[in-house]
Each structure stands twice: as C-alpha cells, then as structure tokens.
C-alpha cells in the first residue's frame, strides 16, 4: 500500500445514558470523529469506513446503533461494499449491528475529497457471563479499509494487531475510558488525536452549571 502520511483524528466524546440503579449504565453513547485530511490525494482511494460488532462469549444480547452520520468534503457511496452477519439500516440514517453472529460488519466507501467523518455510537452494555473460564465481552470495532489494494485495512497501532482504529468492549459500567482509539502506522504513518467533545445536551448542562457557579461566586463576593 503506498499512501502519503495520513492524519486521522478519531475523537470520542461523552457518554450519556444511565439506568436504575444509577451506579450502572446499561448503555453508553459517545461521538466518534475521524479526521481523514491526510487521505486527500492518496492514490489508493476510495477508502471505506468499516464498522464491526464482534461477538464475545455468546451468552448475552448486545447491539450497537450508529447514527447522526456527518461527512465533510465529500459523500458516502450510498450503499455498502461489504456486509457480514447481522446488520440493518444505512449510513444515511441509522445503522444497527447486533451480536447475532460471530462477526457483524458493514462497510461503505467514501469519496476522495472527504476530510472528516463523524457519527454517534450507542452501545448496549450487557456483560458476558460464563460458567467456567474467562468471559469475553462483545466488542465494537472501527476500521478504515483500503479498497484498492489487497493488503486490506489501513494498518494501525491496535495492540491486538487487528488494524482497528477504535475498539470498545461492551460490559456493564463501561465508560468513555473503555473506548480505545489507535493511530495508523507506516506506510500510512499518522497520528490519531482523541478529543473528548461532550454531547450537546451535556454541553448545555455544563454551561448551566458554569453559569450557576459564576453567579454564586459573584453573589458571595458582593456579600463579602
């Protein structure tokens, strides 16, 4: 694969949903942003966004819902170029992967001018339980696929050697910190930067809290 150095920014942001009891999350939501600027002009285009839910021990049901797709500088192809297992929907609206099969995957190419891709991820978080041995969680993975070569995914620093740029294990009490992002590697040398960007609703709540804090401080200052 001959690619110019690429710069990918995979931003993962903010969790949201909780359930009773409050200490445990039954789902986790966050935003992913992939900066594909460094792919511009690469002769191996078009690349594809590859989304995968791999089954773990296989004793619980989980799903990953992908929505709010936003693409800058270009478009998605409009239809998948690879599917496997249990997936439904499209990048045009909402895509759902369920762990009905060992591998559940959806890939779709994007045009050469694309500079960033963003989407929202909502994962159910049911922990695997086993009667013996070590439980293996279901896992959501994201790859970039180079369709013009036989070498496959754009290589990454993922420690398992999978070439994923994002891996997220699904389990009870999962938080944003359990979502792992990785940089691409030579010959696609690049740097992944991860930036936590709160959801809009969370931003609003944070802003209200900040205003309240400032107001309280001002009031105390004036009283003093």
């Amino acid at each position: 694969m001959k690619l110019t150095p690429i710069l990918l920014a995979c931003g993962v942001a903010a969790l949201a949903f909780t359930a009773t009891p409050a200490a445990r999350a039954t789902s986790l939501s966050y935003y992913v942003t992939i900066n594909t600027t460094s792919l511009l002009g690469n002769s191996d285009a078009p690349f594809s966004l590859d989304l995968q839910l791999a089954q773990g021990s296989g004793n619980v049901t989980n799903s990953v819902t992908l929505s709010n797709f936003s693409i800058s500088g270009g478009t998605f192809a409009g239809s998948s170029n690879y599917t496997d297992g249990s997936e439904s929907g499209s990048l045009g609206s909402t895509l759902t992967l369920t762990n009905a099969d060992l591998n559940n995957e959806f890939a779709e190419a994007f045009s050469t001018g694309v500079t960033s891709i963003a989407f929202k991820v909502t994962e159910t978080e049911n922990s695997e339980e086993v009667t013996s041995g070590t439980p293996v969680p279901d896992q959501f993975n994201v790859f970039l696929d180079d369709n013009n070569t036989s070498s496959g995914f754009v290589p990454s620093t993922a420690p398992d050697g999978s070439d994923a740029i994002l891996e997220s294990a699904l389990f009870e009490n999962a938080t944003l910190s359990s979502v792992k992002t990785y940089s691409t590697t030579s010959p696609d040398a690049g740097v992944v930067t991860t930036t936590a960007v709160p959801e809009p609703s969370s931003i609003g709540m944070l802003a209200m809290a900040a205003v309240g804090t400032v107001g309280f401080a001002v009031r105390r200052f004036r009283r003093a």
Partner: protein
Amino acid sequence: MRTSSIRRTHGGLLSAFVLGCLLSGTFMVTAARAQVTTVFYILLENRCWTSGTDISYSNVIKGNAACPYLNSLVTASNTNSAQVSYATAYHNVLTNATGDAVSMIGTTATNGFGIGGSVHPSEPNYVFMEAGSNLSKYDDNDPYGSTNSVAQIANFLAKYPQYSGENLCALLQNNGISWRAYVEGTCLENNSGQDYDSALTGNLTNTVAPPGVRTMPLVSFSGSNSSYTNEYNGSHQWNFAVKHTGSLFFPATNGSTVTTPNTSSTNIEISHYAPLEQLSSDLANNTVAAYNVITPDQYNDGHTALSGTFVYNGVGGYAGGSDLARLAQMDNFCSIVVPEIQASANYQAGHTAIVIWTDETEGSPQDDYYHTLTEIVISPLCKGNAYAGTLNYTHSSDVATMQEIFGVVANTPTGYLNDAANFSNATTGTPVNYDGTHGFAGQTAVGQPFPGFGTGTAQDLSDLFTPGTIPSGLPGLSLTASGYAFNRHTNVYTQTVTVTNVLSQPITGSIYLVLANLNTTLNNSAGTTVNNAPGSPYVTVSAGGLAAGASTTVSLQFAPPSSGPISDQMDSLITTNQP
C-alpha cells in the same frame, strides 16, 4: 486488634505457601478450578446434624427416622451415597487455634455487636455465607423498612473499615461468572398477573413471573390459598423469608441502595433471581448458572412445620407443628430436588457439586462442639461412598472453597472474604466461655480433643473431594480478556489478554496462558502443553515472572471457528517446568 493480627498470620501463611510453591517449581494453575464448574447449595434450617447428649429438641438429622433420604446419603452401603462425602464436625461456633472467636469484634457486653463464638439467629449465617462475616448482624430483620439490615451492615462497615463489605455473589458477577438464587415462592404471579413479591396483594399462584415482570423480593411474606400448590410438599401454604437469601442483603447484588429498596422490574440484578419453580426447566435446558443457591421456603427448609399433618415416606403422619414434621418436610424436599439435579445433563457432565447445608445449631446449649451442622457434598468429584470427613468445618470453609473453585479474589489482605481466611476450628487450645452462657459444656478441660471435636483444621472443603479437585488457594494471577476484532482481509480474530499479579510478592517463574478446550486454531501458539491440560495451545506471557501488582498484555490470534463463538478455557500457569 485481634482480627488484624489473625489476618497477618494468614497473610504469612499465604506467603509461605507462595514461597513453597515457587521453590517446588510449579506455583498454581488457575485451570484447577475447572475441576468443579457448577455448584448447587441447598440451604436448610436450624436442625442439628448431631447434638451430643442434648435432647432438648428432637431436631437431630443424623439417625432420625424422619430423615430417611438424608441418612441414606451418609450410609456407605446405600446406593445414594456413592458420590457423597460429609462432615462429622461442622460447627456453628467459630474459633481459631487459640480458641478465640474470629467472626466478630468482641462481645455484646463490650461493644454491642453480639456474643462471641456463635452466630445466631438465621440471618447472620446467610450473611456470613456471602461475606465471610456476619457483619454485626444478630437478628432476622428484613433488608429495608424500619428494621433495615442493609443500613445496619453499612453502619458497621463504616465504623470498622477493616471488614470488607464485598460479598461472594458480587465477586462472581464482577468476574463474569454466572450465579443465580432460586428462591422458592418468589417471582411468582398473584392472581392478577403481578409479581407477588412487590404487589403483596391477592393470592399467590404457581405461575412463574416472566422476566420484565419480576421484582426483587425484599419483604418476607406468607399465606395459604388453593390458588397455590407447593410442588414439593403438596400443601397450599407459602412462607418466604428474606433472611434466608444472603445476597439480598448487599446492594451490589440486590440492585438497591443502602437506604432505598429497588423493587422495580428494571432492577438490573433481578436477572440473578428466579423462583425455585424455574429450576426444573433450567436443569432440563442446561441453563443453570455456575453458582446456584437454592433457598426453599420455610416449610421445605425445615424451619416451620406445616399447619396440617404431613404424610411422608409411608409414615402415617407427622403432627402439624411438630419438630419431626419439620425434619420430614426438609428430608422430603431434598429427596426430590437432589435426584433431579443429579439426573440433569449438567450434573452428568461430571463437574458439578451439590452441597446440603444447615445454617445454625439449636439446643441447649446450642454452641458447644457436640452440636454440629449438616454439610453433605454430592459430586462425582467427591471421595464418595459416604466418606465421613472428621476435620473441623464452619461457614468459613464454604466461603473459602467457593472463592477457590471460582477463583475470585476479594479486596482484602488475604484475598479471602473476611473470616473465610480463618481456617475454622482447631484441635488444640483452651476453649473460652465467651459470655458466660454460651460456653462449651463438657469441654472445659484444657487439652484436646474433646468429644465431638474434629481431628484437625480445615482450610476449605477439599478433604471431602478427591485430591486436587479444590484449588489449594486463590489465584495468583487474574485474567482480563478483551473482545475480539476480526480482520476480514487476513481472516483472523484477534484479542488481547491482560495478566495481573494480584499477590503481594513477585512471581519469578515463567508465566504462560493456556487455552484448553479451544474450538479453533490459535495461530500464534508457542506450542502445546505437556503437563497442564495436555495438548492445549499456549502462549508465553512472561518468561521472567511478574512483579507484585504488575500487569502485562499478550495478543492472541485465532482462526475463525467452524461455527458459533470462539470457545476456550483460558487459564494462567506459573511454572519453571514444561507447561
């Protein structure tokens, strides 16, 4: 402080054990827990196994004609006993080698936490089976409401932080090991289709409430109506007591807070609770958990006699309300549920253990060593043929054994849950009369053994099993596996496994990760084992060991299996020899 010094003592024992194992070449194979993979605890009430010369209650099981089934299990010539071992010296009294009480901090007289050397009434014993301590409980209060046992425990833990508030079922679920409490009479519908547990209106029926309707049973209830027929004793009476299900007293496993019960159907922990009426279908479908606690209602567990005459085993009738009726009801229940479990595919697979257990002694005095409790273990892995273990056992032995079987480590200095680290009663030392009324009658002389006293100290239940069945300690390594990522271009599933040394000392032997019973190919295998799960692929985790508390990560690469999920029995191995 006594408790701390005892912990240090056993911490030293643990260290010595570790050192000995390291010197001998092989430290520990966590794969050993594969020997027993499924456990059923059948929790029964009050009746003594033996009571010496005390005849204040006609409540002794051993040799009692009202208990033909339980006695058949411990009769060597009986076919029922082929896979049975039992304890002859299982004590309700908890002492250590010097005769000191270890289960609690002092006495009622000094700090209000109850008498030393005994645990009564019921609830403290069920709490003990979860936490390795009664955690100050000395009553039968429900977990919430005006009596609020959960808050009581929380207050105790806040005052005495050296005690761990962890419980066994929480350790299991935190380690991804399935557990389920089969609680008779709960999670059943009333005649309006509601879960009777929380509705507490109408009449109980035999209809199992489906998931989504079930609620956490946090309030005791009883009653009778023809709408309900008990499938074991045939009566129309029901009697559920929260106090007999220990996991309901811990927020981690009751899905509630310290102060507020969560009886909504969305309580995340409710999936771990099922009516006993579901056990048959779970056995038939082979969907039981790894750790299963069976809590019969208060009639079938021997606590309370049915109101009418109870006919059993051809005997014309045990009078309602009588001690013998309670014994007969208990025996009748066991004679049905134990063979049902034994007939299941799960048991027939050869890795299941059934434990018949009673919570506390009765009598006068109830706490001397003549009064013993029931501990009958039924398993293909038992020594069998009614092997009569003579070591001294207590509830600590059970808790320690479950931690060892399932390899779950508590956040305590020893890794054991509180007094599960204290290896039950010893044969030497001076008995101490703790409160002036609960002494060891007839056992006042210095020097051992006393009548009814066992022949040695038991760390766990391993003497009741064939050698090597019960792991000799807690795992020195913990494993955390990531999920899989599939590279469709290379056709490889990859995974990372993080291995952590949970001991307080370094491991100097080589560390390997063994994947027994793997249903596909491990592409990056370093070879196959010779001495541990022979023929299994393995990878080298660390050739030079691992510092205390340190972690390291290895990557695994699998070929896609022919069907279904990737399946393996992943275990760590520390050895200086061929893996």
